């Protein structure tokens, strides 16, 4: 078992969805149930593989690459098929594999218009390959390929299955990301050739391990800063950081529920993951130069996202904007460049994935039932659909960072870390960020509770007073329960994630902390 996983685990997790997709393509369009079963089986088997790896994972050495595989891929440019999992990527892989089956289950009878399960599920499966691939890739070029693979299915999910304004939203999403990617590929090539020049004796490499070990030593300061800037643009767009965030509300608002869930739960994490996996270890010195800027944009994002939320009338758009604010905390944690902060950031990514995913599920179901998300027309959800109303309350509380639920452990340690950033970063600046971030929690409570009040409290508006609103379906229960359980479990016992990430984070920051 162990051997099998060692050699095949990450590869299987990455390409099983692709296999499932091929099977799906062979199924006639009319066989909808069969298509759903195939998708469910595929995503579940990915989940099983990941869980198996979770058990085989060596938690005493989370800093080393496990289940590693290194095969030649494109000899001519020394790009290799290098994959592996360590403490930093494991939580995110688990998150991805965890989210997908429940998205498929939720889709069971919630297919968005135009109802075409085959195409929809095909896109979901390609998406999963891309996402898992990003998290396992240990080769820059491989990462880049997967990073781009993610783009297309999402583009079609939004552009085909989205709301009224889907074309605009999908193009915006696509162009924004491609804009960032363009800079990333330049940076990747720069790193490749500079490595060849400085240490590689003329041969460049895309290997993350080799590049991190080099750490940009001997580069001119400005070169490093510029290369980091390329990565910053690519990942900053994906996160999204202020001021590159404007694609997000549109994409979320227009995307089908499942798309929003995946977007919030996993896709945004590709950006933050890129920072901690690629940008910072590769160029630690440049990271220090960029850290105050990232921190500043992060806190601006926190306050700004919150203000954006307060101005919304559409529930889904509000949740989308809240992502900007929440990812601000994650980025603030990353900007501190301390293990404490980056651990918090990874925790924040997982927590945000679960919580915001949950919120989007609920928003989607509200839309299904009320056919509107305009908060001025909603109200009294607790009366119409009590269970869903309570879950909304629960998710809101989790989202605003209530201790005892997962959100808190992403937020508070990030603020904690900001008080004492890595050596060489200005303490007064980061302490100011900390205070601003803390003030952001007021706003977070403000917009979320305000939404809760308008959607769940009070009495239903006249429009829906007599309408029968179905409370949760069976598929809703099955799809949502695991999210809720994980939010509580992680909230009560955060060690589950911190234990995994800590070793890896400490190791990847070795160049900065000087250990």
């Amino acid at each position: 078992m162990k051997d099998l996983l060692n050699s095949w685990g990450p590869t299987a997790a990455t390409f099983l969805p692709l296999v499932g997709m091929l099977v799906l393509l062979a199924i006639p369009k009319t066989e909808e149930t069969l298509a759903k079963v195939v998708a469910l089986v595929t995503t579940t088997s990915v989940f099983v593989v990941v869980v198996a790896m979770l058990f085989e994972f060596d938690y005493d050495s989370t800093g080393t690459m496990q289940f590693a595989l290194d095969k030649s891929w494109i000899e001519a440019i020394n790009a290799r098929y290098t994959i592996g999992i360590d403490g930093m990527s494991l939580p995110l892989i688990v998150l991805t594999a965890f989210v997908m089956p429940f998205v498929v289950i939720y889709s069971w009878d919630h297919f968005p218009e135009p109802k075409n399960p085959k195409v929809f599920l095909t896109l979901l499966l390609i998406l999963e390959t891309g996402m898992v691939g990003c998290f396992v890739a240990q080769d820059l070029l491989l990462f880049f390929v997967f990073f781009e693979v993610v783009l297309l299915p999402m583009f079609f999910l939004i552009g085909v299955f989205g709301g009224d304004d889907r074309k605009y939203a999908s193009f915006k999403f696509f162009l924004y990301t491609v804009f960032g990617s363009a800079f990333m590929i330049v940076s990747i090539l720069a790193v490749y050739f500079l490595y060849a020049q400085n240490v590689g004796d003329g041969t460049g490499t895309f290997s993350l391990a080799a590049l991190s070990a080099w750490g940009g030593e001997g580069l001119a300061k400005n070169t490093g800063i510029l290369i980091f800037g390329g990565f910053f643009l690519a990942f900053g767009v994906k996160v999204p950081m202020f001021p590159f965030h404007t694609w997000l509300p549109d994409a979320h608002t227009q995307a089908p529920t499942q798309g929003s869930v995946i977007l919030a739960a996993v896709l945004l994490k590709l950006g933050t993951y890129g920072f901690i996996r690629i940008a910072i270890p590769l160029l630690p010195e440049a990271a220090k130069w960029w850290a105050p800027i990232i921190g500043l944009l992060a806190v601006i994002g926190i306050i700004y996202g919150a203000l954006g939320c307060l101005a919304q009338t559409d529930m889904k758009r509000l949740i989308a904007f809240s992502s900007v604010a929440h990812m601000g905390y994650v980025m603030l944690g990353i900007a501190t460049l301390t293990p404490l902060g980056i651990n918090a950031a990874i925790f924040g990514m997982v927590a945000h994935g679960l919580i915001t995913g949950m919120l989007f599920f609920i928003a989607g179901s509200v839309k299904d039932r009320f056919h509107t998300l305009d908060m001025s027309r909603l109200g009294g959800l607790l009366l119409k659909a009590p269970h869903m109303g309570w879950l909304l309350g629960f998710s809101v509380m989790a989202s605003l960072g209530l201790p005892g639920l997962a959100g808190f452990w992403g937020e508070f340690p990030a603020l904690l870390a900001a008080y004492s950033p890595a050596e060489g970063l200005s303490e007064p600046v980061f302490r100011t960020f900390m205070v601003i971030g803390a003030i952001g929690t007021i706003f977070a409570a403000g917009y979320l509770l305000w939404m809760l009040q308008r959607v769940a409290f009070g009495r239903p508006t006249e429009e829906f007073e007599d309408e029968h609103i179905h409370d949760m379906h069976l598929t809703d229960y099955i799809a949502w329960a695991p999210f809720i359980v994980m939010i509580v479990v992680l909230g009560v016992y955060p060690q589950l994630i911190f234990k995994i990430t800590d070793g890896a984070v400490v190791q990847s920051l070795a160049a900065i902390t000087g250990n």
Partner: protein
Amino acid sequence: MLTHAWIIPLIPAISFVLILAIGKKLPRGGSEIGIASVAICFVLALTVAFGWVSRVNDGTPPEGRQSSQSYLITEGHETRPVTEADAEAENGTDAAAHGTEAEATSTDHEAEATESTEATATEDEHGTETSAEGEEGGEEHHATSAVVRDMTWFDSGGFDIRVGTMVDGLSSLMLVVVTLISLLVHVFSTDYVAGDRRYTHYFAFLSLFTASMLFFVLSSSTIQMIVGWELVGLCSFALIGHWWEEKPNSDAALKAFLTNRVGDVGLLCGMIILFFAANGSFDIVRITEMANEGAIRHSLLLIASLSLMTAVMSKSGQFVLHTWLPDAMAGPTPVSALIHAATMVVAGIYMVARLYPVFFEGLSIGTGNINALAIMGSVTLLFGALLAFVQSDIKKVLAYSTISQLGYMVMALGVGAWTAAIFHLFTHAIFKACLFLGSGSLAHHIHSFDMKKDMGGMRKVMPKTYATFLIGTAALMGVPLVTAGFWSKDEILAGAHMLGGGGDGYPFAIVMGLLGAICTCAYMTRAIWYVFFGEPRGKSAEMELHENGPRIVVPLMILAFGSIVAGFVNIPDGSIPWPAKWQLWFEHMVEPTGTYFVATNPDFGHPSFLPWVAVVSFGAIVVGAGAAYLWYWKGLGPHGITERNRFARAGYVVLEKKYGLDILYTDWIAGGVKGPIARAAYWINQNVIDGLVNLVGRTAAKTGQWVYRYVDQGAIDGAVNGSGATASGAGEVLRKTQTGKVQTYGSYLFVGAALLAAVIVVIAS
């Protein structure tokens, strides 16, 4: 039992889950689970308290050790806490709770690999004792140190974040107070909210609140305090908004939560500062010890204590963040009694008391004669009391009274009278709960709290409520010698007079305290008049009223009884004849003597009984209550002055508008942020940033079109087409020469040849 205090919060937590899960199916809607769990908690709390008392009396710890980190490690993932070598562990209740616990919370699934690994594998009864970090060992100080037991919650970036319980006099007291009031409130509620639309949820949240509050008071680390602090806030939110169908209720709930969030910013910042000041530890003992030893820079302590004061300001309803508390009365009355009078609102007081060395050093309490904490308390106690005058809703009167009394406690902490503050917290919890439940009893049938419109003359129809309410009021006023309120308030005033730098006292505090006392007596006398005297008005006149049933009256009686006897636990010497053994018993038991408290600081003192203070405060009662008596009963005094005198009217308006703070917060700040500012930000988002993006997009598209039209189609293609056109144009001209006639061609040939020949000839020559 002291090391097993973690069971206490766990029981109501389980009860919460159970009530939510199966409560609706039970005959009494889940209330039975709630009551049973709280009753067990109460018993356990008493056990803890007795354990602590005997620990203090014996001088040696009855239970093994100060701090425990040892956990039984069985191979693999399963671990459970090592059972201590104490008898209570055999106790059936404990064992049951213990069993459930292992399943219910993952906090105890801790796999903390300590050095005890192989030693404990076979042992069951005798846990290996690993002594905690050196500074926690208390024996060498000849003082009764707190019993701390903790374990790793998580570790991140080299910091070991721990969770656990800390039992000492203060937390034992709080355990008893919280569980007692909670139990009485539970019993009271079974009648009071009977038939409510969300009876089960109500009890579930009461349980959750009890659990959170107990978790909070047992905290051994500041991060745990934050968690507990916010969880009680959540319960407060849920219970204030219990009847969320009506918008004012949910508004009040939101206001409470958001105001508390403002304070939480201070809490987070303060705790973070202390974390790093203590070299990366949330441990309360460690932080306080370091503050005591002067191991933390004064400026850090000052900033930390000011930040934490913001938290106190919001949670404990101190001026200027008190505005949520009166609105919180939108919740059910028993909730007001439990959460917004007796327990949750004193969380701020408790937090200051727990981290007292931080404040003591940071604000120079022992050596100064004025400080921020004392000012905040003094101002609050007077301003709150003044506001109580203009309320017509009895619950709001009591709410402002609570604010005012909390002000006394904060002031006591500010002047250095630690024990007085905690003592007042204790007595206030009892008599204020009595008053709140009394108001609930009054309103149970008439469903109105308006004293002016719907009450009056109720002493005849509700004699028991009347008696208990009167006793509670007497305690609140501080009627000398016989009531609990007297002893605690007196100690505070004495402290304000004689503590502080050079024994000069805190003049500002004592003046405000006495003025507040006068106001307290006056507004309570006014309330008594409106409710119990005069003719029945409004609903109380329309309805056939009668005394409530035992489930409402008995808790009232218990609390009224407590309002009298609670004072006798801390009789200072030199006041009334009292056995020496029991003099200042409360102080001996509750005030920590360990190194984590300021007791060793030479600037820290205790007030002694001052007869003149007692006399003056008695005078205050006479003045306050007498004036109100004359005004209401006898109709004396300038009635209608607010209509006649501009200044009086201005004063009345200021009070009625609550100093304008509500308008400032709700309309200006919240409205401003939610309205114009948010809209502006969103406008910027849509028009500036997104506009920029769209502009870039559109410009790119336009540039593309331009390039296509002019460059591509115009210039490049133009050039291509142009060359074609030129060619064909030239052809057009040249084709004229193409006559098709051989001879023409021939002539060209010859002309060309001739020219060529000419050229050659010219060149050659």
